[in-house]
């Protein structure tokens, strides 16, 4: 009797702890769009899709060292521009973690990365419908101050495909991913270096995938491994970091089934002091696409992440031509300088003036025939593909962006941001528009904000994009018209009126006035109302959306032109 009471008592106490020391938090988001016919921009058929809805809800539970969570997703059906495989409803993600500082264990869906991600990175990007979470287990060990060891094991998310091998269809087959990473922070490990101006971190990772050879034509390796080493150094205002990765032969649909090894190098050097910062980054990648399904296309089932290094534009016209990483190889460099002209100087004025300069360029790598005397053509399936000199840069330029920005608070009420961009964008390579001429453009924008009073403000954005060659009068063959849908000159204006802290009203027009094809010289009007309360945001907009590319983190999706009404509701608690 007493025993059962005390057991019950113990359970109640436990339950109480489970309840009282717990925190529950979560978030919800729904993006819906109602599509309408719009002959003006060529939408004469909705293909039976009047409504698209993407939604998720997630809940996290935390109690001391324990946490667990889940995310429910619904695509009913997916919005235009998202992959049709997303269509469906279900529990997409769940996990449980215990971490006491010495050891951390996670089971379920894992997001993590080793170093800069050249060998392993799983992440989720809602706005792209992208999620390559690893479902399995992870162990993190911190055996001594400054030392972190990690191991992961599992299988990656592929839309709604089942995770068990026996349930696989031929086209959702994917392998097991196994990885380990070690990092050593010398400044934390070695007491004498604790407060040193000199900092040093070393790391290394090893990742392998185990896949079944399903090809009747090629001999696909069943184990493919990749390894990387990295170092981060700092001294006072200086910082240097580099990572080098190597992958054994990994024939795949992306690299046209060549049996060449892959390599990547990523380095950065920066100097910063109050009011001034500069960073130089360089990158070389060669055949480093690494997927847990060798037939995977686009961004499917990426095990690693090859970071693009270029400026990320967020305004409408500057972001129209956004670079996306070329998985089979590229050489890239970027320089960025930020400088604040101090307050109280002639150019700095009362509030100081912020300047930024960025230049980035991406070229192809140089590829040579694998056979003596160039007898064999490049990149033939089933061969070693090509050889490539590590430091050689091809004349084939994919992308270049040179931009300069001024950010100035003019007075208590007026604020101005202006930017000039010179762009070179090889649309044939990046977007696959065969035969389309390179986009060479000058882009300018200014963003002026006027604070009417403590609560209300007005914001005006003016933007222009002018192509050097393709504009009004450029001859376009009838059969190639479709490739010119967003080409030529553009103008954009936006006026926003906001009342703090809740309301914002804006109208915008984007106008392709200088398209070489007359029927594409369209206006894209939109009107938007936003209501924000604390962590809740409701946004309703109506109008036209031009065809374009939405990119986050160098991963992009194309958005088809559309017309209609869209609603976004998001909240967190």
């Amino acid at each position, binding site marked *: 009797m007493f025993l059962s009471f005390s057991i019950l008592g113990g359970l109640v106490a436990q339950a109480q702890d489970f309840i009282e020391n717990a925190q529950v938090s979560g978030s919800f988001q729904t993006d819906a769009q109602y599509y309408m016919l719009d002959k003006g921009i060529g939408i004469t058929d909705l293909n039976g899709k009047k409504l698209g809805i993407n939604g998720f809800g997630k809940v996290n539970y935390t109690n001391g060292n324990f946490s667990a969570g889940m995310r429910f997703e619904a695509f009913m059906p997916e919005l235009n521009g998202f992959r049709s495989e997303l269509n469906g409803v279900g529990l997409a993600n769940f996990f449980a973690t215990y971490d006491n500082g010495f050891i951390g264990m996670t089971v379920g869906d894992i997001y993590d990365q080793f170093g800069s*991600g050249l060998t392993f990175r799983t992440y989720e990007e809602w706005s792209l419908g992208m999620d390559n979470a690893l479902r399995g287990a992870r162990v993190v060990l911190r055996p001594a101050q400054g030392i972190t060891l990690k191991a992961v094991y599992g299988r990656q998310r592929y839309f709604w495909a089942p995770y068990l091998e026996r349930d696989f269809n031929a086209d959702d087959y994917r392998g097991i991913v196994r990885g380990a990473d070690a990092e050593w922070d010398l400044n*934390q490990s070695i007491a004498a270096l604790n407060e040193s101006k000199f900092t040093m971190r070393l790391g290394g990772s090893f990742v392998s995938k185990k896949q079944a050879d399903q090809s009747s034509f090629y001999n696909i390796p069943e184990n493919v491994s990749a390894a990387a080493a990295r170092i981060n150094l700092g001294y006072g205002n200086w910082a240097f970091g580099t990572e080098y990765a190597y992958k054994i032969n990994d024939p795949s649909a992306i690299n046209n089934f060549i049996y060449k090894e892959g390599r990547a190098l990523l380095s950065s050097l920066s100097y910063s*002091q109050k009011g001034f910062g500069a960073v130089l980054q360089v990158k070389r990648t060669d055949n480093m696409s690494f997927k847990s399904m060798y037939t995977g296309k686009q961004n499917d089932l990426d095990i690693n992440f090859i970071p693009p290094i270029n400026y*990320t534009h967020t305004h409408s016209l500057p972001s129209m031509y956004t670079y996306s990483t070329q998985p089979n190889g590229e050489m890239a460099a970027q320089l960025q300088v930020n400088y604040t002209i101090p307050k109280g100087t002639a150019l700095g004025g009362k509030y100081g003036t912020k300047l930024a300069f960025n230049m980035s360029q991406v070229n192809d790598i140089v590829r040579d025939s694998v056979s003596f005397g160039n007898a064999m053509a490049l990149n033939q399936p089933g061969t070693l593909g090509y050889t490539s000199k590590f430091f050689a840069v091809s004349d084939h330029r994919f992308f270049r962006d040179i931009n300069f920005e001024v950010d100035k608070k003019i007075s208590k009420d007026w604020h101005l941001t202006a930017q000039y961009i010179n762009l070179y964008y090889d649309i044939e390579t990046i977007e696959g528009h065969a035969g389309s001429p390179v986009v060479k453009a000058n882009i300018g924008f200014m963003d002026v904000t006027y604070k009417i009073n403590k609560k209300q403000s007005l914001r005006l954005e003016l933007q222009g994009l002018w192509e050097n060659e393709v504009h009004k009068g450029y001859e376009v063959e009838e059969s190639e018209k479709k490739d010119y849908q967003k080409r030529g000159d553009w103008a954009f204006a936006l006026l926003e009126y*906001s009342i703090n802290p809740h309301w914002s009203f804006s109208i915008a027009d984007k106008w392709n006035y200088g398209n070489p094809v007359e029927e594409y010289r369209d206006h894209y009007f939109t009107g938007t109302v936003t209501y924000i309360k604390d962590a809740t945001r409701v946004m309703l907009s109506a109008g036209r959306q031009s065809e374009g590319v939405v990119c986050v983190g160098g991963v992009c999706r194309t958005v088809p032109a559309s017309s209609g009404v869209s609603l976004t509701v998001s909240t967190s608690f």
Partner: protein
Amino acid sequence: MTLLLMALVVTGLHAQTKSDLPNVTLKDLNGKNVNIAKLSNNGNPIVITFWATWCGPCIKEHNALNDVYEDWQDETGVKIYSVSIDDSRSTAKVKPVVEGKGWDFEILLDVNSDLKRAMNVSNPPHTFLIDGKGKIVYQHTGYFEGAEDELYEQILKISKKKK
């Protein structure tokens, strides 16, 4: 499933005793580890704001906060932690951008979006106000010109220091 969800929601209603901040460790700009659950500011308010080098409204918010930060510190003792969700493509830029723009906040790097997920942030900018006991008392998403004034009113409400 529904039961579990309900149980979680019910627990949520009762869960008000401990700090709201999750047990997530991030690195600062000098590579030092900072555990978010252990953040403290001697009982004074803490602001945690999520941003990225590529987020225009975030930069505006940070510039605006930086202009008033010194006054706010004098008047309320508030401390601002600015969490960059830049991933490996732009992590190396964070320090030069922060210094180049002259910001004075404590910068933390959430390279793998661990804190972003744990605090249920969907899109930056997203700002949290935490009182001296580690409770989230106010949060706001998005930025319009002047939103910092609203934040400051909220800070004044919980500040022990009076003007």
